[in-house]
């Protein structure tokens, strides 16, 4: 999660200094995609990806971290989203900010085709970026809610492993929901 930027004014104990240096937001981290694209981002943004946050905690994060499972185009989109969501506005305290962010999210996903959103879900899952995973999953869920089984198969590239008789039996069980 993003680190707090507050530093105590006045008293500056040794412990507080140490903590401040560990969580200093001005550290940069370099992420390299599977196809060699590099992205320099603030540590606070990188911490949105839990696997990186854990690496930083465990002190195994060097300055450059390879992200083997994600291509550059997808990684750049994920970073774009992460940057916008470094600080999540509180719905109760700042309704205006929340609305603005929701609107940005909607526009962000509107421009993407389904295959890209899909890759983003897989990547967000790998990086353990819960916020984006939830948002993208919900977007896809909303997209498929009125789809037929054939359409769902196509979208997720799922093989139809039923025999015609088996499929017929399932459709008959709930004929009311299968049109025609």
């Amino acid at each position, binding site marked *: 999660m993003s680190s707090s930027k507050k530093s105590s004014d006045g008293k500056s104990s040794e412990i507080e200094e140490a903590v401040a240096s560990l969580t200093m937001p001005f550290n940069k981290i370099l992420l390299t995609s599977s196809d060699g694209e590099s992205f320099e981002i603030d540590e606070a943004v990188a911490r949105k990806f839990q696997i990186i946050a854990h690496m930083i905690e465990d002190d195994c994060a060097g300055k450059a971290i390879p992200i083997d499972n994600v291509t550059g185009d997808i990684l750049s989109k994920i970073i774009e989203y992460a940057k916008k969501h470094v600080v999540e506005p509180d719905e109760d305290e700042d309704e205006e900010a929340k609305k603005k962010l929701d609107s940005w999210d909607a526009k962000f996903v509107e421009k993407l085709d389904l*295959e890209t959103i*899909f890759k983003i*879900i*897989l990547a967000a*899952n790998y990086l353990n970026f819960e916020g984006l*995973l939830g948002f993208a*999953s*919900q977007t*896809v*869920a909303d997209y*498929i*809610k*009125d789809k*037929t*089984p054939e359409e*769902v*198969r196509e979208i*997720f*590239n*799922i*093989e*139809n*492993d*039923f025999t015609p008789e088996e*499929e017929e039996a*399932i*459709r*008959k*069980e*709930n004929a*009311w*929901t*299968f049109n025609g």
Partner: protein
Amino acid sequence: MAECPMDLINELFLRLAATTLVRCRAVSKPCFSLIDSPEFISSHLRRRLETGQHLMILLRGPRLLRTVELDSPENVTDIPHPLQAGGFTEVFGSFNGVIGLCNSPVDIAIFNPSTRKIHRLPIKPLDFPERHITREYVFYGLGYDSVSDDFKVVRMLQSKLKGGKENFGYPVEIKVFSLKKNSWKRVYLMFEVQILFIYFYYHLLPRRGYGVLANNHLHWILPRRQGIIAFNTIIRFDLASDDLGVLSFPQDLYTEDDMDVGVLDGCVCLMCYDEFSHVDVWVLKEYEDVKSWTKLFRVPKPESVESVDFMRPLIYSKDRSKILLEINNAKNLMWFDLESKELTTVGIKACDSSFTADILVSSLVLGCKGDPTEAQRRKDQMVPKSNKRDGFLSKGFKLKL
């Protein structure tokens, strides 16, 4: 595109409404197994309850059921009554997506409107001859026992013929059905509860005979009647122990003339009517602490109705500033603003006063296998006719006309 891994499909499916998932069973064998698995059904239910997503208003009409999305009241789905028998099917209870249906005390079922799975209860005869009971003296309750993870249906009947075996009062019969055991059981009353039935209770509005589920108990009101029954009593059925007892409430309300019991946010509540003026709602904040009964709010009678005969709070709005109320019937579903005290009608198309309302959760509870008797009927229709004569005739002998 590479095939989507099942754990991601799982995460996506957890976000879908139950009606969509019924369709997704036909996508592939892994999807079918996933959606039918008890673990997924539990997770899906838990997700629905946590997020409050896909909540519906269930409109119960004489000939059909109608579900309305709480967040988008223009999305409406009609469901024909599965237990139709030419008469008026009653609908009682709503828990985790399951409702109770009955045509008569011996024709009862539980039903999930999202998956259209129906479970018909085995017939349990009545102790009393039919002429000794009428609709007004029958109480039903759909409950869920969280201790044994079991749905239960309670049926209570009071005979209008005084005397009987106990030789006092109007005999009462209480039986409870357990879904896990798929069988009924008789409930024996303690004397302290039995004596309540010295009086004869009837509900002019059949709905008042439906039990209210809260804190693992079903509650009914035994109303007072001027000159005949001095005090109101709230009886409660413990779904874990299968015992009937009494719930304490503020003494001031013992002689209220018009009172109903309901549930709001999992807490028992009482509605006290001043039919031409207002309704007061009291809530039991801590179930075992009678001192925690609190008068929560007063609802003024809306201008659009002549009198308030029946009111039920259904659910809080997401920001908890409003409560959805049903006033008399589903035609008057209104959001009550707790601060401004204003009432705003939820406009649902083609919803008249013949409908009543409840909140319904979108769930897969009871599974997706639809109507088992319907399946049997289809099977029977498909059995080939083993008529030897037909077979003989069909083999190359054609009738020349």
